[in-house]
């Protein structure tokens, strides 16, 4: 059989990748292009015609102070959450690779929050912040705990950060664990013989050899924190007074609650570009710092 004809190639490609190509284009590529088109129309979500409005949606996105506030808030939240997630995850990874008893049990336990969807996690923590901590504060008469943190502006942000750290630390820990395991025992032993203390070995040997783990964890946490939606919806719902509305929730409301689909789509694109720039920049800087043993 001649395998170099166009008809053979087409048949083979369609047989193996035809459905994949169709589904991928129908769900990702076409909507992406169509979404770009939508940003130039003022579609209300109902009518058949989508009037062309040029750059008006981008103008209103740039003029939408609520959006920029939400974006700024997301930025602050993401920076703090990303740092804390990775610090906690790294420390946990160090502890569960240090050879203590039951380290597999601990690893499995720390990962549990990642099994459960953000909606359920948010409601659980809402109970913790609104009821359990308040009860604890009242019975021990600790002033800072006697009212719900979720009721104050800064408190709600703090709650979002706490839940994110709790949610992602276990997952990132697994990646750091893989990083620790990849540092060869020979190198560590050599460092010990040269007189390094435990901490020095970590700072000067393990960390430089684990740069790829850091890049990966940072990328995952940055993208997730920038796009946070589920936990935001169930934990704070943007309250109090819209002070904890993150960028993704603002985009959702703009499009589906206020029916400004064009503006919402334009704001989603801006959010995506901001997030992609931060993510890629981080990877680029990280790759430069990589060393090999």
């Amino acid at each position, binding site marked *: 059989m001649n395998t170099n004809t166009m008809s053979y190639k087409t048949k083979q490609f369609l047989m193996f990748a035809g459905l994949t190509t169709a589904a991928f284009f129908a769900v990702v590529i076409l909507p992406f292009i169509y979404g770009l088109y939508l940003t130039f129309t003022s579609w209300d979500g109902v009518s058949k015609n989508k009037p062309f409005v040029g750059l008006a949606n981008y103008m209103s996105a740039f003029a939408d102070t609520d959006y920029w506030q939400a974006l700024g808030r997301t930025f602050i939240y993401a920076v703090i959450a990303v740092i804390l997630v990775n610090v906690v995850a790294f420390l946990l990874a160090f502890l569960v690779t240090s050879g203590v008893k039951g380290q597999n049990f601990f690893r*499995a336990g720390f990962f549990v929050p990642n099994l459960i969807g953000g909606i359920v996690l948010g409601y659980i923590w809402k109970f913790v912040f609104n009821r359990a901590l308040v009860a604890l504060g009242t019975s021990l008469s600790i002033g800072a705990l006697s009212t719900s943190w979720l009721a104050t502006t800064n408190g709600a942000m703090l709650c979002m950060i706490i839940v994110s750290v709790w949610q992602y630390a276990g997952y990132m820990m697994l990646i750091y664990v893989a990083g620790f395991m990849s540092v060869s025992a020979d190198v560590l032993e050599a460092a010990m013989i040269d007189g390094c203390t435990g901490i020095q070995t970590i700072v000067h040997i393990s960390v430089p050899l684990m740069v790829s783990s850091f890049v990966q964890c940072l990328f995952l946490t940055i993208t997730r924190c920038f796009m946070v939606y589920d936990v935001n919806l169930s934990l704070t719902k943007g309250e109090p007074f819209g002070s904890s509305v993150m960028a993704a929730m603002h985009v959702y409301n703009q499009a589906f609650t206020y029916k400004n689909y064009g503006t919402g789509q334009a704001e989603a694109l801006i959010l995506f570009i901001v997030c992609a720039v931060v993510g890629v920049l981080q990877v680029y800087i990280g790759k430069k710092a990589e060393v090999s043993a």
Partner: protein
Amino acid sequence: MDMNERAARNKKISHAVMIIILLLAFVCFIFPFVLVVINVFKVKADITADPLALIGSRGFTIENFPEAMEKMNFLLSFGNSLIITILSTVITISLASMAAFVIVRNNWKACGLLFGLMVASMVIPFQVLMVPLVSLYGGLLDILNHRATLIFMHVGFSLSMATFMFHGAINTNVPVSLEEAATIDGCTRWQTYWKVVFPLLKPTIATVAIIDAMAFWNDYLLPSLVLAKKELYTIPIATQVFYGTYSTDIGLIMAALLLAMLPILILYVFLQRYIVEGVTSGAVK
């Protein structure tokens, strides 16, 4: 005391400190779950009075469960979640692994183009696609509110990542000579793929299945946009709607949250090793 003894004693102390830190961290991690479990067996008045008490003053009760199950239509949404998750996962794995096979084994232009687009598309977050998706599939085609539509979208979104992972696996783990032997024995490409290549991909299949099934099971935003009918709700949507309706009835809420978590927690007890390995190897790629 000589050097060795002192070193041994220091090591013991540092071990003890590490275990104490780990235990404290562990308590922080499971504390929210423990709270749900102790409160689910209390009546509403007891939870309000003292959410930290182990047992309510009005005693131990399991009546929250049947009521929550009925009011959130638990069995129905469990069934929806299950069928959507299983079908989406199976279809994703079959389609993605086949596509990866043809892409790896041929350097045709179409293959390169498809794979390039897939890799590039992995950075697009769902928020950028949700408005056009609703517009296209709701407005233009009017096929929202079907489980099949959600499955189709789940598959479409997860194909890139899955194809990427199978691409790596076929490249490194499937020797071309094995395929050539199958061809000489009279296998067509189709037979070669299913009889020789696919069985060799088992570890990657497990990884993709775990990552995708967990993502499908827990997804909220996409299903909430596609499925607006009560009888189609998946567990995350049912939980969210239930919370909105009964948020003051905290006993029922506790039961609903526990029910929503239970299936995946039970699965975790049995498949823990595979899940942890799958998620790690998936992330590292």
